[in-house]
């Protein structure tokens, strides 16, 4: 399956905001509405039943939080793998997204991660426990955030005492 054929499958779907493709490396990014996000993920698995979920990359954009879920398609084909990113922008005052663990079980790790790193509530996720952060890591501090909830204060304290050297 070619990049354009993949794009065709998504073109008419509700909630699609933007398509970006890069021929080099066969990368595609779809920006979608949060309400329709899960439909897009389900479509990925309609296209290829055993598509591979790689990771969710999250970034604090200031007023909002961006999540990009990366999937790999055609991973058995020589020089034919397509790397697809589904991007969702969440407003800071409503950081919620639906779980996709019903579609792909392996998304559990990424969902636990965005919960503890960005304070995004993943609705319906089977596991809300911390994974990468220690249990005594301060509550209400989220390492990937760049606002007052971010880790800058902790990092500053890390170097205290240097002045006495």
């Amino acid at each position, binding site marked *: 399956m070619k990049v354009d054929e993949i794009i065709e499958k998504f073109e008419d779907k509700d909630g699609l905001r933007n398509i*970006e493709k*890069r021929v*080099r*490396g066969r*990368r595609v*990014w779809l920006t979608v509405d949060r309400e329709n996000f899960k439909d897009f993920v389900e479509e990925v698995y309609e296209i290829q039943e*055993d598509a*591979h*979920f*790689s*990771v969710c*990359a*999250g*970034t604090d*954009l200031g007023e909002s939080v961006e999540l*990009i879920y*990366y999937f790999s398609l*055609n*991973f*058995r*084909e*020589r*020089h*034919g*793998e397509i*790397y697809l*990113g589904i991007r969702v922008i969440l407003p800071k005052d409503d950081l919620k997204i639906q779980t996709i663990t019903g579609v*792909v*079980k*392996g*998304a*559990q*790790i990424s969902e636990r991660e965005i919960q503890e790193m960005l304070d995004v509530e993943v609705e319906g996720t089977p596991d809300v426990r*911390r*994974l*990468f*952060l*220690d*249990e*005594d*890591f*301060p509550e209400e501090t989220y*390492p*990937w955030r760049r606002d007052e909830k971010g*880790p800058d*204060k*902790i*990092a500053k*304290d*890390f*170097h*205290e*005492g*240097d002045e006495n050297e």
Partner: protein
Amino acid sequence: MSEEGFEFSVGPVHPALKEPVRVKCKVEGEKVKDADFELSQVHRGIEWAGTKRNPVQILYLSERICGICNICHTLAFSRAVENIAGIETPKRAEYIRTLTAELERIHSHILWAGVAANELGFDSVMQYTWKTREKILDVIEHMTGNRITKAMITIGGARRDVTKEREEKIREGIEYYRKAYDKLENILLQDKTIKARTKEIGVLTEKEALETCAVGPTARASGVGKDVRKTEEYGAYQDLEIEPITPDMYHGEVNGDVYDRIACRVLEIKQSLDIIEDCLNMMPSGDIKYEENIPKLLSEVQGAEGEGIGRHEAPRGEVIHHVKLVGEETPESWRVRAPTYNNLLSWIPMLKSEQIADIPIIAASIDPCMSCANRAVVKDGTALEKKRLRELSRKKTKELKEELGDV
């Protein structure tokens, strides 16, 4: 003990696990009924620190994510940045990158074989494999200047060329491993004890491997032929017919057990030797860097905007770096996805219904790397505070002085 059995923890610091992770098993008698894991022991804040640095500085930081497979992180990061900035890496540099990455794979797989033997209580094999590994470290040192931290990759190229002298040393290394390979294969795949301890143990079916999104030898041992070296055009791999190694290539069947994971890695050592030899034979001439001048390179990269994904098949599986550049000094986002991150969930189906005594070898069979999986954060309080660390260090030195006399 309740009627449902009890909970048994291995780790986070445990003689049977070389990585700081806690594997929690619900057991009934000797049998594991359910499993779970806890990370969070070595979170260092590397991605956070990266977003405060420029792409050339991040290169050095990414090299320090993992001690064993550091080429894979610098390579994936460089590829992500090159993808955004539209930088074309010279062909010779692509070959040098591939060659170094494969040297790293041999070193990592032999190291792992030693760890696995140790988990089985077979220390003579551990000593033998690690002795064998020394040669590859010598070759790496000769090629890169360092045994472990190689610093071979730069954005748009490689930092050191393969000179005539270095080529000879690499060929000598290949010769050594071609001779050692049969013995290595015989010990690791034919030994009765190893077979008894690893066959039909820690099974991960193909369906489970796909569901848990496993990567690398962990997935391939279950029959999922996924290998970035085959599916993406990069490095010298694009000119070579790389086939993902699956255990049926060795014994005609795929069982997805610990034995199959050993078989995959052993066969991959041989595959890497072939790739290195092909790289040397086919090495094109020409430049090894897209741009020699670092400030010039940096200004070109910092002027670029967009999202980039850099991928590489590391010894443990696929490494992905997601980078977002916005035309400023530092990237807006840098996300590292190491293979262990994806392989962790596969522990659960592997451990279920197995014996307590097999937990260490099953846990080790995915070749876990916690420094890769955890990456990131600075903790407040006392544990990691610099001042406190210094106090403890001085206290210990004082105690040692008192004990040993002021030497």
